[in-house]
């Protein structure tokens, strides 16, 4: 694990991505952070039921890809998918409303935290069975390849996913068919409550398996938004032009436990503190200031983000619960659920 930390100390690539993109990356990370922190506050107020899995500390990955992707590209993510869904432009009130089980939720209260989807924004679903969505993302990529649309599918998952069969099936399948799909492993060092290195035969659970599918071994600092953005751009554009899939391992750390139920006590003392020093937002803010961007500009981004989160919270709180009349709707394409005549 120490070696992983060392790897992350690599400097960001010296490519100027322009101030506009930098501010967009910052804005998006702030939005994801503030919105998820609000989701956590709403749990504490018992306004969010069920479970939830936060990406606090991992925002640079969703943000880097969110900024790099074309509006008609597709995102597939896991039950830890609030950030990735928001990063495609899904509304905060739709996300918070879904977590709260309100009518204004993205799924009208039928999916919940683990299934956030906003097809109009290219967020093609959050999948709560480990590994299931990797082949689904491959299928979307096949559709893009077949129709020649140059769309790319991006599929996010955790380090734990690399030990399930669907991961290997999807990687091999995508490589053989040369599909425009980017698999992004967010290695936050823990599969649920267990250190990933104690249950995985190789050091880098994704990157060290890449060669088995004829793919390049790629490890990126997942807490560096610039590095994530540049990596995303490189492999998305390659896939768009017919260069086939990529498997990217982004090293990161979640600030909270696996889920709402997990205080994360299995983590060694001091580990979280060390990673809090490498908080992606904190690091990015410092970098932008060093590069001459005015503090007031960043303050404004933060203030505006908080205004949006507050407004979305108010909207979600004001939204009524779903109507019981809708419970049997939308099993079938005709809008109903009839299984007999």
């Amino acid at each position, binding site marked *: 694990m120490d070696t992983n930390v060392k790897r992350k100390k690599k400097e960001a690539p010296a490519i100027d991505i322009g101030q506009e993109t930098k501010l967009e990356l910052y804005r998006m990370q702030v939005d994801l952070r503030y919105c998820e922190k609000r989701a956590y506050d709403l749990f504490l107020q018992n306004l969010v039921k069920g479970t939830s899995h936060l990406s606090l500390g991992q925002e640079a990955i969703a943000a880097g890809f969110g900024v790099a992707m074309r509006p008609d590209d597709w995102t597939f993510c896991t039950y830890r998918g609030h950030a990735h869904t928001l990063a495609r432009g899904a509304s905060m009130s739709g996300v918070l409303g879904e977590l709260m089980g309100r009518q204004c939720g993205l*799924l009208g209260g039928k999916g919940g935290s683990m299934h956030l989807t906003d097809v109009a924004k290219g967020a093609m679903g959050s999948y709560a069975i480990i590994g299931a969505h990797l082949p689904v993302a491959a*299928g979307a990529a096949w559709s893009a390849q077949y129709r020649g649309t140059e769309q790319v599918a991006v599929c996010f998952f955790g380090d734990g996913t690399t030990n399930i069969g669907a991961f290997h099936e999807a990687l091999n*399948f995508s490589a053989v068919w040369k599909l425009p799909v980017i698999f992004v492993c967010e290695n936050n060092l823990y599969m649920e409550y267990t250190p990933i290195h104690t249950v995985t035969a190789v050091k880098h659970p994704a990157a060290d398996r890449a060669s088995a599918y004829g793919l390049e071994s790629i490890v990126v600092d997942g807490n560096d938004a610039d590095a994530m953005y540049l990596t995303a751009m490189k492999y998305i554009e390659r896939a768009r032009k017919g260069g086939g899939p990529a498997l990217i391992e982004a090293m990161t750390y979640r600030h909270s436990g696996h889920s709402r139920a997990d205080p994360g006590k299995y983590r060694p003392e001091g580990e979280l503190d060390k990673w809090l020093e490498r908080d992606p937002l904190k690091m990015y803010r410092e970098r932008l200031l060093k590069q001459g961007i005015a503090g007031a500009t960043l303050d404004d981004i933060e203030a505006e983000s908080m205004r949006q989160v507050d407004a979305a919270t108010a909207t979600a709180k004001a939204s009524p619960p779903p109507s019981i009349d809708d419970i049997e709707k939308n099993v079938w*394409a*005709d809008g109903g659920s009839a299984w007999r005549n």
Partner: protein
Amino acid sequence: MAELTYRDAVAAGIAQEMERDENVVFLGEDIAAAGGVFKATVGLLEKFGPKRVRDTPISEQAILGAAMGAAMTGLRPIAEIMFSDFLAVCWDLVANEIAKTRYMTNGQISLPLVIRTANGSGSRFGAQHSQAVENWAMAIPGIKVVAPAFPADVKGLLAAAVRDPDPVLFFEQKSLYSMKGEVPDGEYVDELGTARVLRRGKDCTIVALASMVHRALDAAAFLEKEHGISCTVVDVRSLVPLDTQTILAEVALTGRLVTVEENPRLCGWGAEIASIVADECFWNLDGPIVRITTPHIPLPSADELEDHAIPSVERIVREIREKID
């Protein structure tokens, strides 16, 4: 009308739909260059090319996941799972993903896809290549379930399944692949969710599916000729949606219901039909409902054992004589 085998009707149905709609694509193991291990897809690669008819690795999760991802982004894939037993290795995709995604996303995602699979006994393949698993599928809300008994139904119902906006699990009976039957020429599309009355009698109504339909017909002919018992035979054809109106009407006319099921006893599809008939047709019944099924055992492979396990014409005759006459 042309006489086609059940297996040729599969290829004819797929070809009809691929010709009609370029968004129809077909993937699976050994389906393209080899024409399918049951030779049910011969000629499709030559006709439609490798872009639309694609061989896959032995990766059932990848096959169904790819079909799902393609379906949600504008294609109408047909995926083959070589043996229905193999659905167990990709059941997550069927039961958790494909069947539930429309509902969970409140209608945002549509999945117009067909999963074709070879189902059932008759080939002495043993318990992992011979199961009748249609009742597994029937238990999952959100997926349609079809199992044709005749070549014409294969073509017509397969076409209907491809055109359906919802996911359909299409069970082909492997013991019927060589069966011949008249199939309408030209474009032919049937209707999902419709049972068919194949003969009418006055003493009892036999409700059957896939290969059991043929045994029910043979049993009915024998019972009429040798024992003067006249039976209605209903081919269910589609378990989801289920044509309960036809079944209830035909049971009401004879006052007796016999189901003939290839699946093992517990939670077989006949149990659901028995329950519906008991609820809604009770006062028209003249006696207990009879379910004829495979015993609740893994299917054995030896000729004598497999033949004994699966409901035979003789067993159907015997049980109807004992319990109905």
